[in-house]
């Protein structure tokens, strides 16, 4: 009996330890390394940054990279542009995804599974390939321009490619499923008679939506927005392939600092600030949600 209990206790610890170990090895430790590099100075050497301790064993850290980042307008503007781009893509995904998720959640079970399959289907094709496909659609002799010219709506191609518009479309397209799935999950659980009850008590269809459906889908909306916004913020491939040279986003700056300029400390600082930009709002949001749940309990 006691041996059994002891055994259980051991297993419980193992079960808890595994994810912590995972997070430590693949998240916390790399983060510590990146943070350490961000406090070093760049040198032309192997590795391309100074050690954290000099020969006397004194701490040799400097916040130069951070200072440079926050004073150079280029970086500040790029951060802002990234927030706007990712935010815009998130809103577009929400606007497109909500009605789709709603439709799927309200369809009959057989159709529902088919529709869900169609949402997930694009994942079976490489992400890179799908972005390339958008190049084929949007370039000057691409499908969209050819079609519009054939219609006679325009007489010379519209410049889609290498603009912010193309990046925007690419982001929204790629991350739409991440919006739809959590929205679907929260809408599907909802009791339809709640909406009917609201209508019965005097709410029009629109009013019932804002009073009942929307607040009850909020968890799904928040999850979907985070799932789109976070990866869109750091997106590198889409702006690189679809965006122009001047449509700089933070993911591309990060890449260029690492591999083109080989300024590892600055690149690390860019990454740290990006992380803070993402983590701070999420923590605030979680606090808010936890308080919400506490007051309910």
């Amino acid at each position: 009996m006691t041996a059994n209990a002891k055994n259980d206790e051991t297993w419980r610890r193992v079960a808890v330890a595994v994810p912590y170990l995972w997070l430590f090895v693949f998240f916390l430790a790399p983060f510590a390394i990146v943070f350490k590099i961000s406090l070093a100075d760049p040198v032309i050497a192997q590795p391309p940054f100074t050690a954290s301790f000099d020969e006397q064993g004194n701490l040799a850290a400097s916040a130069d990279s951070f200072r440079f980042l926050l004073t150079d307008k280029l970086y500040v503007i790029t951060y802002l542009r990234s927030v706007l781009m990712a935010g815009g893509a998130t809103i577009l995904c929400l606007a497109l995804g909500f009605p789709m998720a709603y439709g799927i959640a309200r369809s009959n079970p057989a159709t529902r599974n088919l529709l869900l399959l169609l949402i997930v289907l694009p994942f079976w094709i490489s992400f890179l390939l799908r972005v390339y496909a958008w190049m084929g659609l949007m370039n000057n002799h691409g499908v969209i321009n050819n079609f519009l010219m054939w219609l006679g709506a325009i007489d010379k191609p519209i410049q889609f490619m290498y603009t912010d518009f193309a990046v925007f479309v690419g982001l929204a397209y790629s991350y739409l499923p991440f919006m739809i799935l959590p929205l679907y999950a929260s809408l599907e659980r909802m009791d339809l008679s709640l909406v009917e009850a609201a209508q019965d008590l005097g709410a029009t269809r629109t009013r019932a939506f804002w009073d009942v459906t929307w607040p009850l889908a909020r968890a799904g909306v928040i999850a979907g927005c985070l799932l789109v916004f976070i990866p869109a913020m750091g997106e590198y491939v889409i702006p690189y392939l679809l965006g122009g040279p001047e449509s700089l986003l933070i993911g591309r700056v990060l890449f260029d600092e690492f591999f083109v300029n080989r300024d590892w400390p600055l690149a690390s600082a860019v990454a740290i600030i990006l992380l803070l930009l993402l983590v701070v709002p999420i923590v605030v949001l979680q606090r808010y949600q936890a308080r919400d749940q506490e007051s309910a309990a």
Partner: protein
Amino acid sequence: MKDFIHIKGISKLFGDFVAVDNVDLEIARGELFSILGGSGCGKTTLLRMLAGFEVPSSGTIEIDGTDVTHQAPYDRPVNMMFQSYAIFPHMDVAKNIAYGLRKEGVAKQEIDKRVGEMLELVQLVDFRNRKPEQLSGGQRQRVALARALIKQPKVLLLDEPLAALDKKLREQTQFELMNIQDELGITFVVVTHDQEEAMTLSSRIAVMNEGRFKQVGTPKEIYEFPHNRFVADFIGTINTFEAVVTVVNEDGIEAYSDEAGETLSALGRQLIEVGQNIEVAVRPEKIFISKEKPEEAGDVCIEGVVDDLGYLGNRSLYRVRLNSGKMVQVSSQNRRRSITRFLEWEDKVWISWRPRSAVVLLD
């Protein structure tokens, strides 16, 4: 005024499926009316048409003289209590109850006052600021009731109001519902599959099957004078004997039954002819069981053997096998306390009933 709610020739089709088939019904003001039937009989569809969630394929609905057939749910003087109660999980009790008045644009003070009155009516004053997930099933039911009543609807629709409660609570809540209805004088239309619930609650009952009303009447009429086999079977248990009509007179009929081996008389109804095949039906509690042949003149008396018996405390159930092999159920009150059994298996017995206790069933 008999036709406070007037349903005229209502039908509802879902594709080829006829959910409600040409139903006519009049309900008086202040009635507690039940629609009783098994699952899929169309009772919920009928209720949803009254609420405005389904549009009838044909026919009209009038409430208090106004045609509401094509009115949206939010325009009707009707409120509904849903089977799942449909309490808004993101609002507390007071907000749930106030919802209908807020949509009406009633002043805040007035809302507070009326919510207070409702909370008192359903005895939830101390639960004003609770969230729905902190409430028991019975409390949720009362929140749903208060929320539906606060707008003082002309008609309150209740979809299986007690189905989600356990047996004890159900009985208690039944009487609460009746008291509230009595106090407010609002017309209640209840949909239920539970015959006992319908019997105790209602002033009148409509028994429904396959989209049609099989009989509409007071609980007593439905139980004592079922019009047809379906109603007789659906409400309680009943013994039926196939018979051929031999005599039709003013009081009733006489019919010979092979199953009973006797001529049975019963209170008749119009439109019965000599030679017609009918069924004569008797409720188990209307049958007397005895060891000796009863002397009562005019009673129907048949000989049989006790095939099975069951002791239920307040009463005993017997299954009596007649000479024809027909089984008859008899229910008898245990009026005297006795340790030994009055009847044993395979005892020879007489069963008897008064002709007035039997009814004629057609179809």
